[in-house]
């Protein structure tokens, strides 16, 4: 965990008092809605269909139990008793009142949480691997660099009014859990031949109506040059990114229009002039940030404790353990993923009571730490394996032990037309129906790893382009229709999915998905061939034939 110091605390308190003044001026009419809009967006406040929506940042997906309790408090005190975890390590509250927002922000500031730049045309929350610092084989903890980037991008005086939003993601593992290739800047931490830390920098990824997978702009940027290189990219973008058309304003369009080589030249030219300046990161500066991170004092524990051996006789426990428990870098410990995708529930929602109960469990079993992943699930990152059976029972009691992690019912979905003013179609009820269709966990295990992503409009908050199965809501003659793609993925082999056939009406979506899954079961080379690999091997055609032949 990163611990705020006096300076970090001062800054977020200053931000809260500034926003309190801005809200006051809006309520008195001194600020027009046009003037206020960007200011509230920069504090995470959207105007949605029914109310203001409030998006709070969980930088690089790390939360303390104290912070989680405060999120529960905000859900209870200012909202309707629940929150919604998003695909970018944020939490959203859907029913907040404008006049109470400054108080909610002040309550969050007490525990070092803010909502700065969770929307608006600026750099958004810096996201990372939710297993950072605990994943086996990780090169080093990417959160140190994430925090350096968080500070660098917060209230940046030059880049707070960019052509469009700007998102960073960072990973330090071979397997990318942070979806870095669909970000404006994706950073893959690795070491050069001299053993020095640096980054492969990728640029211009993003979904929305013109999806692109990010391209590598530089295979290795030394850690000490990270900020100057990033500043060079952002400066080029701030000056030359398009501002005439909101749909062409992301950096991906600039990169595409210039071509990656020319764009890289522009960046290189700019970087040459600033790389030895004030942004250079000495080792001592990096160490200063690193020193503010605390790590658990792990015990020496057995890999296979008696408690675990005994519990293995319980098929329910075993089913959950095989699905939701993952290897940890320390012997005797495990990472436990908590599915926020119960059968029939809206993906990513957690109640205030669940958050409080989970905070207690984190204190008891995970050194007071909780993680949030882009799949809209939570994790306890440091659980002693001997505690797994007891933890499982406690999680089951609060509805956080659904053993469907990475399976067909572990669906990523945006809020859709139930909440969002941009949406063309509903997302949540589609997800709910699919979790009911695939509620049998044995069947789901037979199907194996399969990611379904649902977006209620072309803005793609549900990342449908990179779902193994992607579902996109569109509007056709006043009715909700859904385009379905297959073969997308968001990991280190990121790829956009391909359309499997014509759009289908709301009532038929679940049937079509079932047919696609059945087609896969019939077509796969063997039970170990994942859905996405079958699509890669066979292409879309055999799926189209089977699913659409009778439609």
């Amino acid at each position, binding site marked *: 965990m990163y611990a705020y*110091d006096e*300076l*970090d605390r*001062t*800054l977020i308190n*200053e931000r809260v*008092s*500034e926003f309190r003044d*801005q809200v006051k001026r809006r309520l008195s009419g*001194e600020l027009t809605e046009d*003037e206020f809009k*960007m*200011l509230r967006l920069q504090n995470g406040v959207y105007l949605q269909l029914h109310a203001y929506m409030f998006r709070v940042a969980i930088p690089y997906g790390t939360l303390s139990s104290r912070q989680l309790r405060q999120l529960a408090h905000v859900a209870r005190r200012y909202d309707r008793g629940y929150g919604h975890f998003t695909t970018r390590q944020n939490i959203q509250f859907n029913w907040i009142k404008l006049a109470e927002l400054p108080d909610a922000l002040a309550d969050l500031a007490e525990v070092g949480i803010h909502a700065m730049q969770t929307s608006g*045309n600026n750099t958004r929350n810096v996201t990372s691997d939710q297993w950072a610092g605990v994943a086996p084989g990780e090169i080093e903890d990417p959160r140190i660099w994430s925090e350096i980037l968080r*500070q*660098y991008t*917060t*209230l*940046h*005086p*030059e*880049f*707070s*009014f*960019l052509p469009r939003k700007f998102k960073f993601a960072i990973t330090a593992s071979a397997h990318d859990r942070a979806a870095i290739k669909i970000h404006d800047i994706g950073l893959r931490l690795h070491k050069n031949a001299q053993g020095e830390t640096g980054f492969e920098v990728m640029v211009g990824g993003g979904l929305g109506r013109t999806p692109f997978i990010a391209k590598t702009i530089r295979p290795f940027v030394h850690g000490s040059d990270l900020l100057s290189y990033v500043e060079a990219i952002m*400066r080029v973008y*701030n*000056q030359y990114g398009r*501002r005439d058309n909101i749909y062409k304003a992301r950096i991906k369009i600039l990169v595409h229009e210039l071509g990656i080589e020319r764009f890289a030249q522009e960046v290189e030219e700019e970087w040459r*002039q600033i790389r030895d*300046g*004030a*942004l250079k990161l000495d080792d*001592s*500066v990096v160490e*200063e940030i690193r020193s503010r991170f605390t790590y658990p004092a792990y015990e020496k524990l057995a890999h296979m404790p008696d408690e675990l051996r005994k519990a293995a006789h319980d098929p329910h426990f075993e089913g959950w353990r095989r699905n939701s428990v993952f290897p940890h870098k320390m012997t005797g410990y495990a990472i436990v993923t908590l599915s926020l995708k119960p059968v029939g529930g809206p993906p990513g929602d957690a109640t205030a009571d669940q958050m409080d109960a989970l905070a207690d469990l984190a204190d008891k079993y995970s050194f007071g730490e909780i993680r949030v992943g882009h799949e809209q699930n939570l994790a306890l990152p440091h659980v002693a394996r001997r505690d797994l059976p007891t933890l499982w029972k406690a999680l089951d009691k609060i509805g956080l032990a659904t053993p469907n992690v990475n399976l067909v019912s572990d669906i990523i979905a945006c809020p859709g037309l139930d909440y969002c003013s941009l949406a063309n179609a509903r997302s949540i009820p589609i997800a709910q129906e699919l979790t009911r269709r695939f509620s049998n966990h044995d069947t789901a295990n037979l199907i194996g790893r399969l990611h379904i992503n649902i977006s209620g409009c072309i803005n793609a908050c549900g990342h449908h382009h990179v779902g193994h199965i992607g579902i996109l809501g569109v509007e056709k003659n006043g009715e909700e229709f859904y385009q379905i793609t297959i073969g997308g993925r968001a990991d280190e082999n990121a790829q956009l999915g391909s359309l499997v056939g014509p759009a289908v009406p709301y009532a038929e979506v679940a049937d079509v998905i079932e047919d696609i899954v059945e087609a896969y079961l019939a077509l796969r080379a063997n039970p170990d061939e994942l859905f996405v690999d079958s699509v890669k091997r066979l292409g879309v055609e055999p799926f189209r034939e089977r699913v659409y032949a009778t439609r």
Partner: protein
Amino acid sequence: MPLVKNGKISDDAFVHVADDAPLPPDGAILISAARFLEDPEAISRRLGKTGVVWPNNRDVDDLVPYLDRLAAVALVFPTFRDGRAYSQARLLRERFLYHGELRATGQVLRDQFVFMLRAGFDAFEVRKQADAEVFAQTAKRYSVFYQPTGDGRVTALNRRMQLRHSESAGL
């Protein structure tokens, strides 16, 4: 529109001269980039200071050869949401070491004062009288800054390092 300079509302020494209006023989003028670049030599020979309003979609590189003869450069925020002039300002101050007046024009509002100060602006054509009146206290809204710019404010990182050094020196 009130002008804020040196932190307070001030008289504007410069006269905005439209492209089709004749240039006054003396006195400080603020003219468009296009007009200035038509004949920079002739304009520089005038009695009185010259200021140029530089558009936000043209590289400041084109202005650099003339910086030493300009008393003011005015950069433009067509709306406060268009942030190109922040980059131009930092380049003028930090790369091209321009020391004259750097003026923010257009939709200049209270809530951007701190960003503008940090980018190097020192004069502000403020849209609203009420915003101009609270300039001084608004400029002090923040005391912590994460990024180094050319404005000399000490960054949080540097303050931490200083603190650490003084601690280790036993002070």
